[in-house]
């Protein structure tokens, strides 16, 4: 016993995601997935859902007794929505965590560099030009939202870089504020000129998963995976970045380059998430902070746990949004703030660890 206690206090190991936290993250994802699959307006027996899912496993053949319509609801309505929710939540949360790391700013979120405003403008243009009514086989709303989002971040980076980002990353943040305001102004102008589409634009801005299909999942998945992979590979480098640019450089990394790579990865992921789900605020800000307060501040812990809890949080929130006032759906962005804000205040008050 004594020897064990001694070796614990002297042995040096790096911080890593410990088993209890890994398990609770996986458990949260599993619970949220199960609940989202089992609960819905179509009255399907829980046991039948489980049998239907088991049936699709390799080498297992059981009869769930579900009608083709009910089976279809599970495979084409609930499951893509669950998967899309998980991908969007994970992507927004890890992107937010990585933005907070490269800017060393606790208020950074994935929309910081104008991604939301750019996507909003793109979606508004698609909707008012009538091509984005969602009825055609090819919907231009996600495409223009994606392009708008990336263009906005690129514009921010260009402006920030030309105005002294070498001296301070704050120049980039200020450029982000300017670009976001500018694009929002254009978006508002276009929207005011086309009041008949205001409801559609508004619905998009509040965020939703109710149009989820496998098509949207396949649109988001490659970007989500790429972004997460690149960010996770930089987990230790992002810890070095916590020393600030000058000291990070003195231990041998290139802070400007790391910041650029991580911003590109996170912005691709965010743009793809926004394109399929609209603007879901709060997830990228609150999930990483909650994880940081509870589990530790190293990015080796914060990044993977943010993904898991971000996925679980968004699935859960979507479940609440579509059941609480059923058959009406409450916009997911409303629920994220409504559930997330009080929870975060509780965590913040009950914990003395510092943010950052």
């Amino acid at each position, binding site marked *: 016993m004594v020897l064990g206690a001694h070796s614990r206090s002297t042995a040096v*190991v790096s911080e890593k995601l410990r088993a209890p936290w890994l398990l609770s993250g996986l458990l949260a994802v599993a619970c949220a997935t199960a609940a989202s699959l089992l609960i819905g307006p179509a009255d399907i027996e829980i046991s039948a859902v489980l049998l239907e899912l088991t049936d699709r496993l390799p080498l297992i053949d059981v009869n769930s007794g579900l009608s083709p319509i009910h089976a279809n609801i599970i495979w084409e309505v609930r499951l893509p929505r669950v998967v899309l929710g998980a991908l969007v939540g994970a992507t927004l949360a890890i992107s937010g965590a990585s933005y907070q790391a490269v800017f060393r700013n606790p208020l950074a979120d994935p929309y910081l560099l104008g991604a939301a405003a750019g996507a909003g403008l793109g979606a508004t243009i698609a909707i008012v030009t009538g091509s984005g009514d969602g009825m055609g086989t090819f919907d231009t709303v996600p495409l223009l939202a994606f392009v708008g989002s990336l263009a906005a971040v690129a514009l921010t980076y260009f402006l920030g870089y030309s105005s002294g980002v070498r001296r301070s990353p704050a120049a980039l943040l200020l450029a982000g504020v300017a670009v976001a305001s500018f694009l929002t102004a254009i978006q508002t102008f276009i929207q005011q000129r086309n009041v008949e589409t205001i409801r559609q634009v508004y619905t998009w801005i509040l965020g939703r998963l109710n149009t989820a299909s496998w098509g949207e999942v396949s649109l988001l998945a490659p970007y989500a995976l790429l972004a997460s992979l690149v960010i996770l590979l930089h987990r230790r480098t992002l810890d070095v970045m916590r020393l600030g640019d000058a*000291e990070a450089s*003195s*231990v041998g*990394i290139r802070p400007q380059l790391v910041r650029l790579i991580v911003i590109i990865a996170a912005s691709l992921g965010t743009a793809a998430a926004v394109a399929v789900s609209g603007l879901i605020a709060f997830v990228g800000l609150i999930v990483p902070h909650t994880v940081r307060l509870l589990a530790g*501040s190293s990015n080796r812990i914060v990044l993977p746990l943010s993904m898991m809890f971000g996925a679980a949080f968004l699935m859960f929130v979507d479940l609440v949004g579509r059941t609480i006032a059923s058959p009406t759906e409450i916009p997911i962005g409303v629920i994220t703030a409504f559930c997330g804000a009080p929870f975060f205040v509780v965590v913040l008050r009950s914990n003395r660890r510092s943010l950052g």
Partner: protein
Amino acid sequence: MRVCEIENVSVRAGRATLLDDVSIGVSAGEWVTIVGPNGAGKTTLLSVMAGLMSSAGTVSIYGHNLADLSPRQRARQLAYVPQQPEVPPGMTVNSYVLLGRTPHLPLLGVEGPRDFGIVEDVLDGLDLVGFGYRNLESLSGGELQRCHLARAIAQATPIVFMDEPVTSLDLGHQQQALDLIERLRQERQITVIMTMHDLTLAAQYSDRIILLSGGQVVAEGAPAQVLESSHLSTLYAARVKVLKVGEDVVVVPISSQKRRQ
């Protein structure tokens, strides 16, 4: 051989000249201290020598032009402790000191058992065993200073730069920190280049002192040669007397005439 050499280095910021045609060489194993009044260019000179600030003129280590080295190659040769290092919130001492291993890891790699061993060794040598799981924010000034030093030592470089490492410490902790640096220098054959405000301490620990004023080297040499009351009075605009107490050169401030009356 000169481990670190700068020739005709000048740094300008707008119209101000921070360094004006400075040339210095430092030999292996030497302890060189840069002194001078506030605004003399001490920190600028140190940053330029450490390759963290660009300048006109040449800066080389071991005969290689510093500008030609990648940040990684540079970080394997020299460590730098700034005047007020960042203290990342929520970071433990272990994690902080392990960051010093960065230039020795593969790109995007993480630490292995060898790095853990090196850091254990460093923490042991700096009397930081038992602090490993403490948060940096919970440490005292002296303990924190040892952590910054530990990170630089864990970097395992032959040259260590320190910008006023003891300015914020009390007298006892100043001596402890400098004794520690001296011991590490002996044990690990490190070349130490630092800036310091306290001239008496600078004289006690340094092999050589470089006196800087207005971005120029005013005097350079053994402590007793450089610390000479007449030009210290002029440069610092201070009333000082340089005394010899046993082996030590002691720089003492003298009170004003008004105050005595």
